[in-house]
């Protein structure tokens, strides 16, 4: 069994992906429950079948191969597959209590849910609060339950400023924070910068870290972010609306094709611009150039996959650059972003 299961598991990813892609809920659930019956460990089903398949789902969406609706449908089925696995295993809690929650504004709940279920399988008593947990609600929960640690998942770097507020609030009530998810950076450097008490790249690494007692019993808050003293982040967020409105007015003048856009296309452009602004704000908050240039690179790839020229990104960045006269840090980020977009 232990010899055959890795092979079985690797082969199952494509099969599983096909079923969730076809909105075949029962097929997907039957597949994982079948493997469970064959003796594949539940943790392996979560992390070696469902997690990689969901990563593929994200890639297929980014490449423009799958619609948003199909991606959402697949994720909804995976949520149920996870539930089906854990309901049939019914782990018994033997360890102390851990709270698991997604950052405020974070809707990508599945990776964090997988962590919660892995911890449950390993015997922790887990309170999973789900997606988009408002900070005040999380704090109330911590006071009421007094867990040994809180694990905060953040998939998108744009949620980092709010994740930071939540993280410091958790530390202020004396609960150490374990950070995880792509939003904290592939190497966890944003988790370090924001003063998290621990960081783990994957759900099983996070479970190991907790098991080995590598979190302190009482948190040590991080240094204050000295660069925020220039108020660029605060002012940019406050004036985001008017700045973007001016860029939206200027765009058609510099990119005449926009004059023929439908309302939906205009909304789409506004959305894209909003994303650029959100990542710019996050990069200002964290003070990390790569956070912004990686995003620009990714957006250009994404647009190209949808047949939109990446030139429009570079143009939007230049217009933003021109708008932000008194924001030297933001201008530097935008200049680096423009280079990345031109090179993309």
């Amino acid at each position, binding site marked *: 069994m232990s010899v055959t299961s890795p092979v079985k598991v690797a082969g199952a990813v494509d099969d599983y992906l096909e079923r969730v892609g076809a909105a075949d809920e029962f097929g997907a659930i039957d597949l994982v429950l079948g493997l469970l019956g064959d003796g594949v460990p539940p943790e392996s089903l979560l992390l070696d079948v469902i997690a990689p398949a969901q990563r593929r789902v994200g890639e297929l969406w980014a490449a423009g191969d799958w619609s948003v609706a199909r991606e959402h449908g697949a994720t909804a089925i995976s949520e149920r597959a996870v539930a089906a696995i854990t309901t049939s295993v019914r782990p018994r809690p033997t360890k102390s209590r851990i709270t698991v929650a997604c950052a405020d504004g974070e*809707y990508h709940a599945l990776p964090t849910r997988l962590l919660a279920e892995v911890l449950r399988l390993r015997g922790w008593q887990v309170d999973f609060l789900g997606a988009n947990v408002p900070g*005040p609600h999380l704090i109330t929960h*911590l006071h009421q339950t007094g867990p040994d640690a809180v694990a905060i998942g953040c998939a998108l770097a744009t949620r980092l400023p709010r994740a930071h507020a939540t993280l410091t609030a958790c530390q202020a009530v004396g609960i150490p924070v374990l950070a995880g998810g792509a939003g904290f950076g592939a190497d966890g450097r944003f988790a370090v910068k924001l003063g998290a008490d621990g960081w783990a790249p994957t759900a099983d690494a996070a479970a190991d870290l907790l098991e080995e007692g590598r979190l302190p019993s009482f948190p040590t808050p991080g240094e204050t972010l000295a660069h925020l003293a220039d108020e660029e982040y605060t002012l940019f967020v406050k004036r985001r609306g008017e700045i973007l409105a001016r860029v939206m007015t200027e765009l058609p003048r510099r990119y005449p094709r926009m004059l023929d856009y439908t309302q939906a296309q205009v909304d789409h452009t*506004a959305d894209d611009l909003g994303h650029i602004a959100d990542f710019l704000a996050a990069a200002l908050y964290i003070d990390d150039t790569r956070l912004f240039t990686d995003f620009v690179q990714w957006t250009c790839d994404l647009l190209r996959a949808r047949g939109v020229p990446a030139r429009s990104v570079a143009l939007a960045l230049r217009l933003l650059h021109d708008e932000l006269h008194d924001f030297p840090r933001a201008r530097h980020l935008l200049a680096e972003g423009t280079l990345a977009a031109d090179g993309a």
Partner: protein
Amino acid sequence: MESVTHAPSTEVLRAIVEAAADGVVLCDADGAVVLVNHAATEMVPGDVTAVLDRSREPGETYQTAVGDRLLRVRREIFGIVHQAWYLRDVTAEAARADALRAERERTQFLVEAGRRLSASLNTRRCARATAELAAGLLADVAMVVLPPGGMRRTSWLRSSEAGLEEGEIPVASADQVPGLAEALAGFPPVPSRWLDPSQAPDWLLPDGFGPVGHLLVTPLPGNGVPAGALVLARREGGKGYDDETETLVRVFAARAGAAISAAVLYQQQSTTNAILAGDLLPPPLPVVDGLELAGSLRAAQQTALIGGDFYDVLPTSEGPLVTLGDVCGKGPRAAVLAGQVRHSLRALLLLERDPEKLMRLINRALLGSPTPSSHVTLVLAAIRPADGVIDLAVAGHPAPLLLRADGTVEEVDARGSLLGAIKSGMIVLRTATIELAPGDLLLLYSDGITEAFGGTTGREMYGASRLKTALATCAGLPAGAVVERLEQLNSDWLAGGVFDDRALLAIRRSR
């Protein structure tokens, strides 16, 4: 005239050395003592050579104890012949430095204690902080026994180099430790108590702790409520408890007791709150054959998670009655009225299932309500799962949207007046009957969704047309995914600026 300098005579030099406050011992090249001044004799009454460490380099300083004095000694070499040893009594200086260090340690301890104890409002976390703080400066092992929550058992936390341990003891076992039962009862107030270590029952100390030298039971004084007791132990042969440490234990116990009792009160109140609010939270949706149901409710006031928006699915023998509504106002006050409307519906449903008639009955109930401005907007949908036929009534509420399996979105043609404002006879209701084909979805929502202000400029309203466009992209999705996607798009639009409750409820006829 020429000035002439005379070198002082040996007599004069000897007199100067003799009168110095520091001790001076002079030796010749062979190490034989040639001179011991008065101060040195004072400091070392016996053999003075015992304090001379000849292995020291010239210029080096070291400390050595003579009786209960502490001496600082410096070795110097003069020319090739003589070496001198300078002695200084630093007993008082060292004692002052020790006292200062101990004082600093105590201050630091109290600062750290204040930081950790003020953080949490959770009983267990406060008890843990108390035990972990005490098991360092104050004891080798520290145990907090919490006040009994129930009648029979009480929990404890213990910290030592073995780590943190937790457990429970029967309340009756507290009697095995003199003073503990009184401390747990919190009344009458009892002072700290030293115990004979042989009196300690096994459960009091970690396994393999070894012989105990000192054992202290200190009550944790709460603010009017018992906060438990702190048990401190040090090993035999370890440091004793001086007056300062005993005072520190008392001050620390007062702080820890205040923190724990505040946490106990908070826990009691939040438990009561949770029970009262539990009924006001969105209910878990029932499983209905032939239908997929999914709902989402986000309250504007985030700590309580309750507000004026509500939904419910009430099963009847003919099929479920689905309701979604919005009570005038926000927060707990609105949630209480929302709960009343849900309860009234549940009771009325025993006698009446027709949405229009139910609306008029609810209106009468609201008009008779003692609560001022009991205004409610409401959608009622009586569903027959077998053929997908739905009777709908809408009162002062946005009309539900219908998503056909092919992606077309229609607004249900039903409307009516707000409830709780005018007499039932005056209320105008235009009801509708629709049919859900397999794969079709009916979406009920509150105006918090469409009236969400945000977007690129932060000042734009989300609006019904954006909601319809978003819904149209959801064809073929399970109901749960539709609700999640719509809520996410709407929250992204708000970008954190939440001012109103938002509710979504989707009913999809299974394929």
